[in-house]
């Protein structure tokens, strides 16, 4: 316990760093993912193939490589000076761009679970495009998307630790800072593990609750 109480500053900073990466990366992933997901289900062939190219390439790229490119290759390219804020922004971008592919796929498969007949029936009774979307398709797609989307965010939360390898302050990097203070590294890492298990259990509890609440009866 001393490892935590003696070093409140490092743990608080690490937790805040992890939460910033998680929230900001998640927001970016949602925005990008919705755009790419919309491209993948759009009636425009060019947009469909661009979306597919993006998803297939990034999904087959290790996250570490995405971080590597953002941390080492991008700054010289764009002439950035690596301050702590710039590193954090780059890490958020790397996480967001990587996670966006999973968000896009989740949205696509969620929309695919809605039977085509639903939209056809809605058109047959004379609903407009806007009504078909907001009253019939989206409510069903949204509900079936939520549980897998939570899995994507659980993965994102665990992936924030990769930023520790690229000099961004977060829980994964706590070992780095505390080893300089001579703390017991093993205890530090075990505490980090416990914190992650708790955070992940919280998220998966929320996932299960939402799943039960919003199950679509078909």
């Amino acid at each position, binding site marked *: 316990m001393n490892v935590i109480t003696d070093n409140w500053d490092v743990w608080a900073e690490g937790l805040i760093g992890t939460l910033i990466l998680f929230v900001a990366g998640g927001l970016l992933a949602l925005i990008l993912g919705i755009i790419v997901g919309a491209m993948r289900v759009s009636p425009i062939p060019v947009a469909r193939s*661009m979306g597919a190219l993006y998803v297939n390439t990034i999904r*087959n*790229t290790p*996250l570490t490589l995405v971080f590597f490119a953002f941390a080492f290759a991008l700054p010289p390219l764009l002439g950035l000076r690596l301050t702590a804020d710039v590193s954090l922004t780059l890490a958020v971008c790397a996480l967001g761009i990587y996670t966006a592919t999973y968000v896009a796929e989740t949205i696509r498969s969620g929309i695919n679970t809605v039977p085509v007949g639903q939209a*056809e029936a809605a058109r047959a009774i004379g609903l407009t495009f806007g009504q078909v979307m907001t009253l019939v398709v989206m409510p069903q797609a949204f509900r079936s998307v939520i549980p897998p989307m939570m899995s994507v965010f659980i993965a994102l939360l665990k992936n924030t630790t990769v930023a520790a390898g690229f000099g961004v302050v977060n829980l994964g990097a706590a070992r780095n800072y505390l080893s300089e203070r001579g703390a017991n590294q093993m205890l530090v890492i075990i505490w980090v*593990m416990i914190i992650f298990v708790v955070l992940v259990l919280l998220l998966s509890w929320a996932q299960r609750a939402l799943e039960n609440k919003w199950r679509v009866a078909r």
Partner: protein
Amino acid sequence: MSSVLYDVPGPRAIVRNRILGVITVVVVGAVLGFFLWRLIDTGQFTAEKWQAFTYTNVWVQIGLATLRTLAAFAVAAIGALMLGFALAIGRMSDHAWIRVPVGAVVEFLRAVPVLVFMFLLYYGLPVIGIRMAPYWAVVIALIAYNGSVLAEVIRAGVESLPRGQKEAGYAIGLRKSGVMQLVLLPQAIRAMMPVIIAQLVVTLKDTALGFIITYPELLFYARFIGSQSELGSPIIPATMIVGAIYIGLCLILSFVANTVEKRLRRSSVGVRIAQAEQPTQEITDTELIVTQRGTGSGG
């Protein structure tokens, strides 16, 4: 192609779709063009930046780094498969004193980030006098994480089988082990093959985490060669080359997963599983119109 989102396009929608298509191409082209301009402007295509990659030795080192990546992947993949089976069988045990602890272990291993587990093995264990090479830290962490994920995949596969399979097995006088080995597991593995291979792609991707705990794999070498100032610090060319190798390896494995999935879908097991996953859809009028017009495309 018919979709729940839009009807078969009429003349006005076709024109609108064309315009949106052009806009997409322009936006994507602008982003790519910007990066190409930055690459040229910062002199990334000069001979100086690429001279490192004219030496045979550099390529030998890249080859060796690729081999080290593959060596970690191969051992981790085999280990994860074996651990996955062991944990899956433990989780499906009839005895609560086996099932409950194994379930807790699986949940724990799945919740801990792989990188933190690598940290524990590489930086944490020396505290109690156990030292290991980065290679083993990478491999053991990958086995623990992917093994627990595969255990859940196999369990889900067994549970997705119709109840009658198990009951028929018991009815002809098999014990639990016989029902598992002869009836349930072969079908579950077959049905879950695409997911299992997809998880192996994740394992291959995660070997790149070894870079952070100084395992000399591909990214580690890219960092090394990219920081050599006498070679012009070619970090961007090195990232491009190493990135192409990583993405290529993962694409090959993903391609195998897709091929297996398609082959399974053609066979009987695959059809049933695919039907179980997606609500069955009869051919609708819209689809008929599309087929008659001959404008149908896959998607």
